[in-house]
């Protein structure tokens, strides 16, 4: 038995396909991207090493980049707050529900499995200035705002709208993960606490909260990284417009790399994006301490 599970040859065989793919498709290209980001390269002429010129331009001489970083950070914060609050709230309510638990859970999770591209088109139509939602508002005599085209303000209205749509679509994931964590808590713990005279809120605060902390770490990381690299909805709802007001890092990268074919410059954006993702994960792992409980 022991020998069988220490079989070096079998371990290598099991790890090899995944490990090789990971190295060739992920690790090597990342290293290559870091190198390209140090070059001036417009797809037609061979790459030319220019050191940190791309990064310097990115941070000192690119207004769209400033908007993109601002929007990405706003979007991440917005998603994090709304998804954690609503997701946990729904998970707690649904977990305690006797009837209809699965029905509601399945409805709220449904948009997560649908294509963001399709939902983006749907909402861009629904939020059209002349049609959709504004027609309903017009019946009540309200002049609806230009949901996706208003460019005013530090955080323009379209970013709030896209953030809300993203929460609508993805809050189900957070809810589902929290429901799984709550389902893993033995009910004997709750029974014991009620015998000791705890009320529901105390039970939630002292039993549920500490025991779902590992899952909180997972959901927070997933939401942050997912929001930083967010692309589909924005591309299909506003394409970064009006006048780049709703550009995020991913759309800026796509435009620079595959509309203007500035490979070097776009790679610099991608390295910044990667650094932000790793930094966020590092912070989350540092700041949320997870204790192990025997259950």
């Amino acid at each position, binding site marked *: 038995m022991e020998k069988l599970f*220490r*079989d070096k040859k*079998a371990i290598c065989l099991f790890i090899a396909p995944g490990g090789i793919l990971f190295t060739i498709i992920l690790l090597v290209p990342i290293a290559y991207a870091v190198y390209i980001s140090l070059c001036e390269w417009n797809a037609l002429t061979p790459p030319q090493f220019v050191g940190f010129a791309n990064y310097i331009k990115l941070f000192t001489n690119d207004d769209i980049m400033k908007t993109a970083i601002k929007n990405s950070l706003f979007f991440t914060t917005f998603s994090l707050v709304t998804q954690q609050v609503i997701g946990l709230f729904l998970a707690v309510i649904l977990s305690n529900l006797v009837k209809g638990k699965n029905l509601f859970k399945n409805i709220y999770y449904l948009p997560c499995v649908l294509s963001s591209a399709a939902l983006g088109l749907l909402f861009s139509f629904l939020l059209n200035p002349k*049609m959709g939602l504004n027609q309903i508002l017009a019946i009540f005599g309200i002049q609806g705002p230009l949901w996706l085209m208003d460019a005013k303000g530090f955080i323009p209205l379209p970013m709030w709208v896209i953030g809300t749509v993203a929460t609508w679509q993805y809050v189900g994931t957070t809810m589902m993960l929290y429901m799984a964590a709550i*389902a*893993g808590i033995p009910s004997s713990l709750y029974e014991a606490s009620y015998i000791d005279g705890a009320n529901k809120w105390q039970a939630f605060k002292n039993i549920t909260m500490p025991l779902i902390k590992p899952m909180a770490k997972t959901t927070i990381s997933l939401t942050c990284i997912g929001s930083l690299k967010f692309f589909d909805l924005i591309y299909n709802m506003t394409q970064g417009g009006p006048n780049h007001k709703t550009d995020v890092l991913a759309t800026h990268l796509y435009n620079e790399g595959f509309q203007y074919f500035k490979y070097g410059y776009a790679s610099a954006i991608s390295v910044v*994006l990667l650094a932000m993702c790793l930094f966020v994960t590092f912070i989350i792992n540092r700041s949320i301490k997870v204790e192990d409980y025997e259950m």
Partner: protein
Amino acid sequence: MKLSKKISISKILIYTFLILLAVVYIAPLLWMFSVSVKTNAEVFSSPFAIPEAIQWENFQIAWGIGKLNIAIVNSIIVCVATLVCSMLFGTMAAFAIGRMRWKLSGTVMTYFLLGMMVPVHCILIPLFVTFAKVQLNNSLLGIILPYITFSLPMTIFIMVGFFRNMPGELFESACMDGCSIYGCFFRIGLPLAKTGLFVTGLMTFVNNWNELLLAMVFISDVDKKTLPVTLTYFVGPYSTNYVQMFAAIVIAVIPTIIVYSIFSNQIVEGLTAGAVKG
């Protein structure tokens, strides 16, 4: 008496809230279906009314002229190939990490999980350039390979939990009966991890079915595009033809809705058994 009344009021409040929220989730989708069977004139005059007559030809036009028939075949090929490979490679690696005893298992696990933090955008340009050199651009294999790679971390993350929590006695008795390590994996490990396989399978399928950015960049040949990419064309040249755009959206989302409704009840069970205790 007083207590039971209080409970029933809070119950009514909770259910009212849940039903209202469910309406917020269902209404846009129902509306999408209703628009897809209207005429263009109807959409402009009364977008929220119930369709007067059902226009099935919207689907026919979107299917043929919009090239959705080709796109859906491409999407199926890509998704099935990715699903099979990533499930096999992922569970194999997860079995070695979660069940077998070796020094570097923790390091290898971290290596795979790093993949969850890497945005696909980072490898877009280098991979595009490299694939162009080896003739992998503009081919379905060129997007299948990165899809498998990006599906692995989630599969491994969930499956490791499953393999770790399996009772060791099962494997011990199998060994006594002369089962090899490969037999342990295929005959005991995999069947026991069925719920986990459903969850990871569903997530892998859904993610790749909906993936837009990579497919958009890597494939320029019209006959090799996947569904989400084809959808974006309805914004451009077909933009005034809303009914066909909506028919196309409906065609694109229906397969995921079917797959989801088959496996939806397994999701929480799968995640609970795997991730939480692991």
